[in-house]
């Protein structure tokens, strides 16, 4: 009898053990599966997020400055003119960069430098519309900008500039960069700012409409002293006509 009871207990214990193990196993697998399929977090800390298309190509990168991607256009990678910034970089269906949002600011050796930009690029080209803020030691500009960009691919200019970007900083680099940019402008590979609406570092609030060669031709201004005027300008920057409150 005692023997029988003990063997029943043992059989029961071993069954319970088996069931327990199975339950834990299932629960464990379920928990891991759930976390693989659609995990939920209250908060995540991350240095870089890549939003990718089903085929793996990027549509958006959100990152700190260190992990910010270089420019990718038509499958080629280029260095930026300025340093990479924290923010977002947008990519079109072809995996080419087509805009972004970057921000930075720091005080170093007593000099403040800050900027923020939100940009959309023309297809195959550089920024065509954007909101920008720039500051150097209290000289600030902020506003909306619209640019013309050439029909040719931005890679034509990028290919010219890229080897110079890799040179050590110095007068030779500056000279060559200026030369390349000048010839790019002559070839029509640059761009032209057509619209600025905002405030400029001379403490004016302004609307500036420019021609296809970046020259301001119509300007609405309220200057730092509060004087308002509308100016028509010629292609050499000379004011042709001014309207103000005191005009008849």
């Amino acid at each position, binding site marked *: 009898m005692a023997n029988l009871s003990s063997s029943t207990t043992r059989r029961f214990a071993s069954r319970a*053990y088996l069931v327990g193990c199975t339950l*834990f*196993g299932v629960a*464990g697998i379920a*928990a*891991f599966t759930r*976390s693989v399929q659609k*995990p*939920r*977090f*209250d*908060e*995540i*800390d*991350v*240095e*870089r*997020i*890549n*939003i*990718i*298309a*089903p085929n*793996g190509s990027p*549509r*958006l990168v*959100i990152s700190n400055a260190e992990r910010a991607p270089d420019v990718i256009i038509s499958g080629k990678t280029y260095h930026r003119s300025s340093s990479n910034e924290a923010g977002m970089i*947008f*990519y079109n*269906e*072809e995996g080419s960069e*087509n*805009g972004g949002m970057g921000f930075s600011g720091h005080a170093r050796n007593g000099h403040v430098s800050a900027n923020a930009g*939100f940009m*959309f690029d*023309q*297809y*195959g080209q550089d920024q*065509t*519309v954007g*909101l920008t803020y720039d500051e150097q030691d209290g000289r600030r500009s902020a506003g*909306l900008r*619209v640019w*013309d960009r050439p*029909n040719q691919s931005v890679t034509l200019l990028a290919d010219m500039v890229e080897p110079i970007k890799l040179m050590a900083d110095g007068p030779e680099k500056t000279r060559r960069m200026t030369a390349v940019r000048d010839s790019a402008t002559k070839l029509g590979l640059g761009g032209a700012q*057509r*619209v600025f*609406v905002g405030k400029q570092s001379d403490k004016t609030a302004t*609307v500036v*409409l420019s*021609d*296809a060669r970046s*020259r301001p*031709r*119509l300007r*609405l201004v309220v200057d730092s002293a509060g004087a308002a005027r509308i100016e*028509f*300008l*010629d292609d050499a920057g000379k004011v042709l*006509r001014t309207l103000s409150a005191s005009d008849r």
Partner: protein
Amino acid sequence: MDDQLQREIRRLRRTNAVAVGLLVIVSVSAFVQARPGTRTKFDEIDVERINVREADGRLRLTISNHARLPEVVVGGKSYPLRGGTGVKSAGLIFFNDEGNEDGGLVWAGSRNSKGYQASANLTFDQFDQDETISLGYGDENRHRQAGLDVLDRPEEPIQIFAESAMAIRAMPDGPAKQERARRLQEAAIARGAMPAQRLFVGKRPDKSSTVMLADRMGRARLRLTVDSLGVARIEFLDDSGHVTRSLTGSDTR
């Protein structure tokens, strides 16, 4: 022999205890990892969509590729009305506290059989309506526009439009469908439920840069322009689009 057997059993029991213990820890830790209330750190993640939700689960923001872009949600209801134009935008969609879409930041661009098409927009919607301010770029084979738009939107909820649009979309293509769409638009005009563009600052496909201010019917009434040749003018217009006064740099007054 009996002693050896008992030692063996004791050893097996110990092994079992350790194994079960480990299993418990692994199972529990798996749940703890997925459980809310913790903060997780990653160096870098690849993801097709991120949903930012309120604590109760209401969606406030999606960040996604095109394939996982959420459907339009208005009046608490989903409408598969996005992407009718074939543009494969990816980006961010914003939702208000009621879970209805209230803006977004999306972009797209690709070659197609006719050339290429590209667009990018940051938009904020009027409450229960469509976009009221938009920073954007649109381009179809070098026919480009870029700038800032401000729009008036109708007082009625956009859900009325969404319901009609769904009904029309369900109809077979043909004259009846076109007629229904035409009547829908006429009715919207009749009850003053059409949007009106009030402001544009930017560049137009005719290669002018411009500031345009419009009246409540969306008619341009004041226009500052520098055209493709660099000629600047300020124009006042009447409600039928006639320029009633024009100022240029060459005026003598």
